């Protein structure tokens, strides 16, 4: 039975960070159209898939903002538009937490979309049964074995006996047990899964996995790829670029993919005459329509150039009189392939507007051409200066701008704050209050949470301070009377 993917508002609100891992339960035999949302998809078991959205978050955030939605609010609509609609979706900051929450959500038919970091999500995690949790641990062990991990210590029988003896039903009943204690009795795998469940980062066995998680991505049936053997070795970009452009044209003409697909990353593997081959990832900030630029491939060549420059810089050989390139380091052959792409069904093709008619599309096109990102910010309703704004692509829920009082109060507060702020306040040598200081505001520092800003203290008294050399500083006085510089008025 399929339920509509419509979340409760409490299933999304309260999340402090953006979730980029999605666990999906679907009846679709091949995982549905998930490769149209992200190129990074893993099949966990027959019906469960995990999606890593970290590389496409910025893109989907922009599409969401065009509809006046945040990324998290837009996701349910995106899943709704798929031809095989999933019956249950959970999102989290770690794939394991998304899976754990999914096991609970599946038992509650009305809970079809849940952010694990939301108020409701945090509650739901406490309802996970030991049966479900241990079943997931066994699947984790199988995936680790499949990826070639050895020396996996997990004493499932001891764990089961302990739970039965203590008559425990939910994992929350042991929430205060440290992972080190779990590891001593039940092995490293269970201890690591325990840490992941409660939101602690811990790498398991192999650093190459995503967040220590045994990621095994779904592979494409066929990847567009072209190899080139150079008649004469090349060193300069100006000589390489026309040939690379030819190869990109050939890739566009291959039959194994279509013009509706969007490229997220290319892989360019270079072989050198005197040194090992070099793998250069060419990443696009937004899914790129490679076919649209057939003939010139301006965007792809620009990103390839930036990646080439960075790679060549890292290959410089230090010498006594400075840095020089390896003398005989010339490219003799290469292969270029489409490493990650979005394969779109017709149902969501309308989201990919390539005609550059809208300003948003022009902006995305421009961002794909630049070596540095263009960042936009959005404000939040938090009183703390450090948490009162966030990059738009990391925004979880649209803020409370529709509440007039909250908006007006924030505006009044922010009008007295500086235009430029330090990420980390800098202690000032002077301890005594200067006469040229005017009180601005007093703030509590959310000392009761783990995310309290540094330096620690219960409250801060903010002042505008005018220095003898004319600087207008935004400083605060801590509980101990010490002054810290937090911002400048520009």
């Amino acid at each position: 039975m399929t339920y509509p993917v419509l979340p409760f508002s409490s299933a999304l609100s309260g999340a402090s960070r953006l979730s980029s891992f999605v666990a999906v339960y679907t009846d679709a035999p091949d995982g549905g159209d998930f490769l149209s949302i992200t190129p990074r998809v893993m099949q966990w078991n027959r019906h469960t898939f995990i999606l890593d959205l970290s590389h496409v978050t910025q893109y989907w955030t922009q599409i969401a903002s065009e509809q006046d939605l945040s990324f998290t609010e837009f996701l349910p609509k995106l899943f709704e538009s798929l031809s095989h609609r999933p019956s249950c979706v959970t999102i989290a900051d770690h794939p394991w937490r998304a899976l754990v929450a999914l096991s609970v959500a599946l038992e509650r038919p009305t809970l079809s979309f849940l952010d694990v970091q939301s108020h409701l999500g945090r509650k739901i995690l406490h309802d996970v049964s030991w049966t479900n949790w241990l079943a997931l641990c066994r699947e984790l062990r199988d995936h680790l074995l499949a990826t070639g991990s050895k020396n996996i210590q997990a004493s499932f029988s001891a764990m089961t006996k302990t739970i039965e003896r203590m008559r425990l039903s939910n994992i929350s009943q042991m929430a205060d047990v440290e992972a080190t204690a779990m590891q001593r009795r039940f092995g490293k795998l269970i201890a690591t899964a325990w840490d992941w469940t409660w939101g602690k980062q811990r790498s398991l066995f192999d650093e190459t996995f995503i967040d220590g998680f045994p990621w095994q991505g779904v592979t494409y049936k066929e990847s567009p790829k072209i190899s080139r053997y150079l008649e004469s070795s090349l060193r300069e970009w100006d000589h390489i670029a026309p040939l690379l452009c030819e190869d990109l044209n050939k890739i566009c003409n291959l039959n194994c993919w279509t013009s509706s697909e969007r490229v997220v990353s290319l892989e360019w593997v270079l072989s050198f005459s005197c040194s090992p081959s070099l793998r250069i990832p060419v990443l696009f900030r937004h899914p790129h329509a490679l076919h649209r630029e057939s003939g010139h491939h301006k965007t792809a060549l620009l990103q390839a150039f930036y990646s080439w420059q960075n790679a060549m810089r890292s290959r410089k050989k230090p010498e006594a009189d400075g840095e020089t390139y390896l003398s005989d380091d010339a490219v003799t052959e290469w292969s270029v392939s489409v490493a990650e792409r979005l394969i779109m069904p017709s149902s969501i093709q309308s989201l990919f507007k390539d005609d550059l008619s809208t300003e948003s599309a022009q902006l995305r096109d421009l961002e794909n051409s630049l070596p540095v990102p263009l960042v936009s910010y959005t404000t939040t309703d938090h009183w703390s200066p450090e948490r009162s704004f966030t990059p738009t692509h990391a925004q979880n829920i649209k803020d409370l701008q529709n509440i007039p009082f909250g908006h007006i109060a924030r505006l009044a507060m922010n009008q007295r704050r500086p235009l430029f702020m330090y990420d980390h306040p800098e202690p000032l040598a002077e301890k005594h209050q200067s006469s040229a200081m005017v009180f601005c505001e007093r703030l509590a520092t959310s000392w009761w949470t783990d995310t309290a800003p540094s330096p620690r203290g219960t409250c801060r008294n903010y002042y505008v301070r005018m220095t003898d050399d004319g600087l207008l500083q935004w400083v605060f006085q801590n509980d101990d009377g010490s002054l810290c510089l937090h911002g400048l008025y520009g």
Partner: protein
Amino acid sequence: MVAAEVLEILSDNRIRTASSNHPKSLPVTSATTANNPQEVKLCFGISALDELFSGGLAFGTLLEMGIPFGNGGRRLLVQFIAAASSGASDGQRHWCLWISARQQPAAYPPAWQALGVDLQRLRFAWSASPVGDLKFALLNDLFRVIVIDHPAPLKPDDHVFLAQCARQHRKIIVVARDGFLDPRDSNTAAKYRLNIWRPAHQNILEITPVRGLHRSTKVSSFFQHPNFKIDP
């Protein structure tokens, strides 16, 4: 050639004259604007500055400013971006780009929003070599107002390139430097050059022209507080 350029500007429906649409804009009386009624200007929303620039900054202008960092002078630039991005200047919500070569302290967007900046129309970029890294943004028609906040002086060639970008793509490009500008500098690419500074223990900003303008002016500093005690 000139006629073609004029036609191109007039056909650009994104641009309207400051005098026709901006309710806050001052009456445009300068000789320059009177002779060129099609000249398109964006105003600061600060009457003293708009008077100084005869109604605002025209599209196609490169402006160089010497503003010691932390003195409060960049607030004028943020107010200019607020007017441009929110549509208060000419009724059009222009895309703006703030390029900074300084990693810390970084922009604090809530304060910018409180000044009227539409954060949806503003993008920030960080680059130590802004002209090289952001070349395609400078050559692109999307961003109409670009501020380069760069502590050190740019190269003369960079100024020439920026002036060309501003002229050919009808942008307003502002280069803000930490140090004061010197009349002996050989930067002739910028149409206007001026210094902004706040005298010690005074709540005013003094604007002193170095090139392109013929008189100084003063604007009140944002920080006006009755309890502010200034050392004698």
